[in-house]
């Protein structure tokens, strides 16, 4: 099924300053001025250079990397643009992307970055909005312009995608390095990153799109430091 641009969502989004001067369109063209913004310069940050040439996504990517698979790069387009579009209003993916469920997910004129399934598409706007703004770990990452791709790779992440430990370690250090940073609250030797379970998946405790949990407490009754972005 093909996602189409819905007038309903347009009217909802119109109130936001970001979407001032919206123009109607049936399908995203990749030209922001044609699709939504009559004056592209007006929605850019105040100190942003003047955008030369065609006011479309390709212009942005002359300076901004489309995405980043490793450490954060503050110029990553994906981080910048998704945060702007999702921190105040939850937009639909189809505002900018051409989506064919089970087939492709792409920006106009660009290669598909993955095969979207029904479950993923059902939740992707929510998940992206949470990344932009929420009490969860994903938002901690977006605050530092860490894009989806930094954890999930340069592909459309499907609903069950869980980053492997190496991805976390690339920025946060190894289990050994983390152990030094996290002595136990009640006893220094009771260290969450050096447990009898060994180097378990980081995602057992650290959950980016829901409250994180302290897995130790599943069995033990310890007095522990709260986990960042913990489940309330």
């Amino acid at each position, binding site marked *: 099924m093909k996602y189409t641009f819905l007038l309903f969502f347009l009217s909802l989004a119109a109130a936001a300053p970001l979407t001032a001067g919206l123009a109607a369109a049936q399908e995203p063209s990749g030209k922001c001025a044609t699709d939504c913004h009559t004056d592209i310069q007006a929605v850019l940050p105040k100190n942003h250079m003047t955008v030369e040439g065609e006011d479309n996504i390709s212009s942005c990517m002359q300076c901004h990397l489309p995405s980043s698979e490793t450490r954060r790069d503050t110029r990553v387009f994906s981080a910048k643009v998704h945060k702007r579009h999702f921190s105040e209003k939850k937009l639909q993916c189809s505002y900018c992307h051409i989506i064919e469920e089970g087939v492709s997910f792409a920006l106009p004129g660009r290669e598909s970055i993955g095969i979207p399934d029904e*479950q993923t598409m059902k*939740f992707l706007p*929510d*998940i992206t909005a949470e990344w932009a703004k929420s009490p969860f770990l994903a938002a901690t990452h977006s605050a530092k312009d860490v894009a989806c791709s930094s954890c999930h790779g340069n592909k459309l992440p499907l*609903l*069950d995608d869980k980053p492997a430990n190496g991805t976390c370690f690339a920025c946060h250090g190894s289990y050994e390095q983390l152990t030094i940073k996290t002595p136990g609250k*009640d*006893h220094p*030797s*009771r260290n969450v990153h050096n447990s*009898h*379970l*060994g180097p*378990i*998946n980081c*995602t*057992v405790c650290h*959950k980016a*799109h*829901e409250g994180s949990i302290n*897995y130790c407490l*599943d*069995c*033990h*009754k310890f007095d522990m430091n709260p986990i960042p972005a913990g489940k309330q």
Partner: protein
Amino acid sequence: MSKKVARRSFLKGAAIGAAAIASSLAMDLGRAQNAGAAAKARALPTKWDETFDVVVIGSGFSGFAAGAEAAKAGAKTVILEKMQTYGGNSIINGGLYAAWDSELHLREKLKYGNDSAALHTKDTILGGDEFPIPELAKILAEGAPDALNWMINEGGCKLKPVLAKAGGHSAYRTHICEEYNGRGYVEPLHKIALKYGCPEPRLQTEVTWIWRALEGGPVLGVEVKSGGGGRGAGKISNIKVNRALVLASGGFSRDMKMRTDHYPYLKDSFLSTNHKGATGETIRFAQNIGADTLQMNFIQLYPYAEPESGILDEAGLYPFNGPGAGVVYVTKNGKRFVSEQERRDVVSFAQLKLGDANKPTYSIFNLEMLQKIGAEKKKLDDFVAKKRIVVADTVGGVADQLKINKAALEETIRKHNEYLKSGKDPEFNKPITPQMVSLEKGPYYGVPQWPAVHHTMGGLRINPKAQVIDVFGEVIPKFYAAGEVCGGVHGSNRLGSNAIPDAIVFGRVAGRNAAAEKA
């Protein structure tokens, strides 16, 4: 012919029973929603999403051992694990391994007397009140040294240079790994499995059905639910087994329905040493395809769990390993209440008989004893800092810290020291050995202890080849099981430190035989 008809009708009954179980199971676990389909015989899958030669369910001792042996024999193997971490109960297990010998020959080196596979077998059978199936107990005892050597040589397993004479054993045969927990064997097995080409276990991959045609024949495959959690509903898929399925999914101590169905006394007011995944759904799926079970009501209490949480930590192992070194168990009144060399069931029920008002009881050690069973001073200091155990320069000082009857404890220890000298325990008739340490020199230690549900001795009926047997006594083709999911190896009471050799020895047997099946 009549047999076939009978089997059909059995399956009908089983399916109805399973339906009743299924609804409460789903409530208990918040999982296994497909079990609801047991109300009717489920149609076999029309297509398979994946195919493996050998599928192993569970990533504990048995699972990794089976996976390693199957992969070594050239079978395309996969290990499925429903939890988010691998290792199940095995990785939180106490790390005690009973073997009458090993290539390290610790017993000879320590001059701890004689032992043999026959004596280990005999202890296992008598310790289980003659309920163990002798052939199975024998396989455990005879295979234990070789499996230990295998882990030492190929997996880097490291043992402490000590041996314990644990409750119910008539010889010093309990080996203790460096880690003092089951990870000391899980990681070596994991390493061996990977070495032979068995891939990393698939985590969060839960079996939701075992497929076998209603009219009988071999096990065909499994239905699994993978992923899920958060917003994800998980994915249901079907995996076909070419050669065989190995069930290594552990016991059911945390399955309140199954536990109390078979042993109503062990209601949920009892704590458990087990991890949360120790539930019985795979036993139900196996029963539903005709598997026989035995001795399901034999469920063991571990007498020395941490009294508030039920956890079995290293401090909770010292009381179990201590008898051969001379540990003394006492009540709040400072009195002994049982022979410390008794079996787990005897010690547990001696405590329960004291009543909740007398919870917990205590083990009294000195440093020399604890070092004899592999406890390191640094670790002891750490447990003291965490208030898990207490230490004092005198026996009276330990009594003060434990807030138990001081005069009585001093008198108890004085008398016990005399018993060690005379070689006779007139109170509880404990067999005294020269290795037992008299409590005359500090520092002294005290550890609180109380029973918690620990091990389910019952389970699926297997033959010596680890093949699962059906209710008519026939082999279910291409279906193996090993470890705590099986019954009949330990009888009414499993001797401590027999679980690991049981799981690993039978895991290896199952893995080899599974790989040898025709595709």
